[in-house]
C-alpha cells in the first residue's frame, strides 16, 4: 500500500468519521510522512510526534480537502509545515542538535524490531545523516522531498508553497554544500 492507492472513496469514508477508512489512509501514507519527518527532524522521537500531529491534523481537516488538488501534495504540505514548525519550536535547544549525531547513530540502525541491519546499511545511514546534518532545514526539506520521496520540482514547489525557481536554487545550493563536504572543490 502506498499513498497513490488512497481512493476518493476512502477519503470520503474517513471524512464521515469512519476510523477503519482513516486507518487505511494511515497505512498507506504513514511511511512517507514518518520518513520525511525522520530525515528532516533527525530525531526518532520528534519524527513520531510529527507523524502523530500530521495524522491528527489530517483527520481534523480532511473535510476541507478539495479533490482538485492531489491528496499526496496536500499531505506533503501538512507534513512539511508540521515538521518545520517542530524544528522552529526546538531550534533554541542547541544541545539537542549537538546530541543528534550520537542519538541518530544509536537509534537509526534499528529501524524495525526483529530485522537485522547490516553494517553496510548502518554506515550508509550514518553517512546520509551526516549529509543532512550539513544542510539547513529549508535545503534539507527540498533534498528529502526530491531524493527520498522522488517529488518533481513542481510538486516540491506546491508542497512548500514556493516558486519553482526557489526549489531549483535550494537544490543547487544544497548539492554544492554536499559536494564541498565530499571534498569536491571545482564548483561552478
Amino acid at each position, binding site marked *: 500500500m502506498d499513498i497513490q492507492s488512497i481512493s476518493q472513496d476512502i477519503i470520503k469514508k474517513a471524512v464521515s468519521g469512519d*476510523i477503519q477508512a482513516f486507518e487505511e489512509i494511515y497505512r498507506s501514507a504513514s511511511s512517507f510522512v514518518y520518513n520525511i519527518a525522520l530525515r528532516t527532524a533527525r530525531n526518532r522521537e520528534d519524527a513520531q510526534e510529527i507523524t502523530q500531529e500530521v495524522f491528527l491534523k489530517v483527520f481534523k481537516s480532511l473535510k476541507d480537502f478539495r479533490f482538485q488538488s492531489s491528496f499526496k501534495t496536500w499531505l506533503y504540505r501538512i507534513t512539511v509545515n508540521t515538521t518545520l514548525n517542530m524544528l522552529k519550536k526546538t531550534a533554541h535547544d542547541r544541545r539537542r542538535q549537538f546530541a543528534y549525531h550520537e542519538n541518530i547513530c544509536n537509534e537509526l540502525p534499528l529501524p524495525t524490531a526483529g530485522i537485522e541491519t547490516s553494517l553496510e546499511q548502518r554506515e550508509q545511514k550514518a553517512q546520509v545523516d551526516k549529509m543532512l546534518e550539513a544542510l539547513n532545514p529549508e535545503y534539507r526539506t527540498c533534498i528529502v522531498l526530491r531524493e527520498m520521496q522522488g517529488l518533481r520540482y513542481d510538486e516540491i514547489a506546491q508542497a512548500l508553497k514556493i516558486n519553482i525557481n526557489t526549489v531549483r536554487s535550494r537544490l543547487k545550493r544544497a548539492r554544492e554544500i554536499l559536494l564541498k563536504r565530499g571534498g569536491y572543490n571545482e564548483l561552478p
Partner: protein
Amino acid sequence: MNCHKFRDIIITDYIDGELAEQRKQEIDHHLRECPACRAFAAAVRSMAVDPLKETTLEEPPAFLWTRIQSRLEPAHSGRGTRWLNIAVTLSMFLAMTFTGNYLVSGMLGSATQQETIISAEVTQQLSLSEFNDMPNEQVEEVYNNIIGG
C-alpha cells in the same frame, strides 16, 4: 553556452530529469565533449544524489497508530456522545419539567383540598365557638328570665 552554465543545469534539472528532450540531448552532447563537466556530473551523483536516493525508508513503529487512534476515538465518538448528551439532557429536562408540574399541581391540589378542610374546620370551630359563647346553662337562664319576666 559555457561550462559554468552547463553545470548550473547539470546540478539541478539534468540530474533530476526535469529537462525537455531537446535540452537534455544538448547537455548529453556537451558531456561527451567536456571531461571536466563529465567529472562534475559524476561528482554530483556520487556525493550529493545517489547516497540519499539509496536510503532505505523506515516504517513507523507499530504503537504509533494505537497512539493516534486513542486520540481519534474520543474526537470521533465525541460526535455521538454530544448527541447522546443532548438527548439525555433533553430527556432529563422534560422529565424534571413533567415531575415538577406534577408535584406543583399535586401540591396545589392538596393545598386547595387542605384549604377546604381547614376552612370547614374553621367554620365548624367558629360555629361551635359561637355556640359555646353561650353555653346551655346560660341560654336556659336567659330563656327563664324572659319567660319568667
